């Protein structure tokens, strides 16, 4: 076998192995998307009920609460960025990071200091490499976040917003995550989580529904005190779940195109290998023919 042909054969073998791996990863990601979507759906009843309750207290009473009151001049903001622990997901992480950086730039242009909180090793690595300050980070659960993880993430954020700005607290909380629109579309977006705009929360529910006058147990303040942190946790939980679903969808897509590319590469390489083999055969034949005719010429000469 010629050297050229051997090289092609080797490359085909290695690309085939890669294709098998990416195909497997694609299938795993596909099944995980379905699972993650199911989790998003399962968390929906809690979120809707909670939103209803928050709207009820917010609109039904004149209670002031640190989580709902806007600071006169906000000077510090917290940005929570949700990325994944692992790559191989196309532009998933870089889109989220880009979106977070745009938000940070915008907040800084408004004269606010920005504290960054990160979920996922990818985002953390990006910030660490550029030696930017990260207040707190979490990782290890981005593929399948549980409610306890959301609680863990929410706790320091709620604490930061409850502390006075002068004592190192923050006035606002923004969250950057990847929304799962469909299997093919996932968009990185940022949203202001706190302080809560009750009007916005109210808009999320169906129009025309008149909220009843609730009897609060033990009191409106206490209910709000207990409700709002739960609301924030549930929003973060939802964002984590959507982010996870988006990550798996992005992985699936990236792996699908990798598999397709590998297939194409194998085709091209086999054609090249065939051509090389054919060229080798042609050369061998012409060598034999050439050799034979040279031999014939020589014997014909000596006979004479």
């Amino acid at each position: 076998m010629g050297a050229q042909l051997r090289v092609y054969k080797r490359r085909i073998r290695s690309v085939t192995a890669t294709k098998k791996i990416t195909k497997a990863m694609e299938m795993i990601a596909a099944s995980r998307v379905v699972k993650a979507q199911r989790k998003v759906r399962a968390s929906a009843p809690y979120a809707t009920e909670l939103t209803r309750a928050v709207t009820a207290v917010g609109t039904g009473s004149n209670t002031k609460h640190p989580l709902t009151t806007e600071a006169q001049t906000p000077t510090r903001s917290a940005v929570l960025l949700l990325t994944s622990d692992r790559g191989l997901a196309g532009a998933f992480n870089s889109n989220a990071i880009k979106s977070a950086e745009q938000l940070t730039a915008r907040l800084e242009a408004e004269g606010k200091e920005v504290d960054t909180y990160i979920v996922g090793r990818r985002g953390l690595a990006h910030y660490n490499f550029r030696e930017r300050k990260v207040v707190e980070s979490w990782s290890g659960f981005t593929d399948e976040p549980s409610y306890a993880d959301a609680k863990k993430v929410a706790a320091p954020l709620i604490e930061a917003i409850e502390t006075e700005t002068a004592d190192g607290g923050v006035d606002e909380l923004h969250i950057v995550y990847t929304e799962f629109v469909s299997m093919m579309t996932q968009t990185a977006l940022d949203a202001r989580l706190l302080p809560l705009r009750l009007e916005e929360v109210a808009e999320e529910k169906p129009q025309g529904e008149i909220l009843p006058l609730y009897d609060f147990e033990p009191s409106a303040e206490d209910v709000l005190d207990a409700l709002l942190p739960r609301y924030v946790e549930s929003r973060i939980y939802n964002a984590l779940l959507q982010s996870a679903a988006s990550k798996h969808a992005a992985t699936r897509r990236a792996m699908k195109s990798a598999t397709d590319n590998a297939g194409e590469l194998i085709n091209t390489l086999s054609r090249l290998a065939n051509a090389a083999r054919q060229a080798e055969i042609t050369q061998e034949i012409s060598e034999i023919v050439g050799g034979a005719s040279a031999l014939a010429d020589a014997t014909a000469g000596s006979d004479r």
Partner: protein
Amino acid sequence: MAAELHVELVAADRQVWSGEATLVVARTTSGDIGVMPGHQPLLGVLESGPVTIRTSDGGTVVAAVHGGFISFADNKLSLLAETAELSDEIDVQREQRELERAKAEGDATAERRADVRLRAATAR
């Protein structure tokens, strides 16, 4: 048909139980509260404790609920809990071990959790 109310018991990550009931008893921070059809709109903070639902077909559903809210309006009652499990989902032996472990380690939250689960499991 007796008056009934619609109950949704939801945990953060799933719907635990939903159906019609004639009476729901839950523990709020200011004491046990019973809700029957036609109760006035209510929004309360729940304590960790067992919730008893008397279903309209005469059965009883008991669930262990840890932290959350009760909200009632328009004959619809929602019980929101961070974690909730029905009494028949609770593994009594495991919770007994858990209770002993929590007691030994002085973990008050875990002890309460296990205690509530055990009480819910035995109340069925």
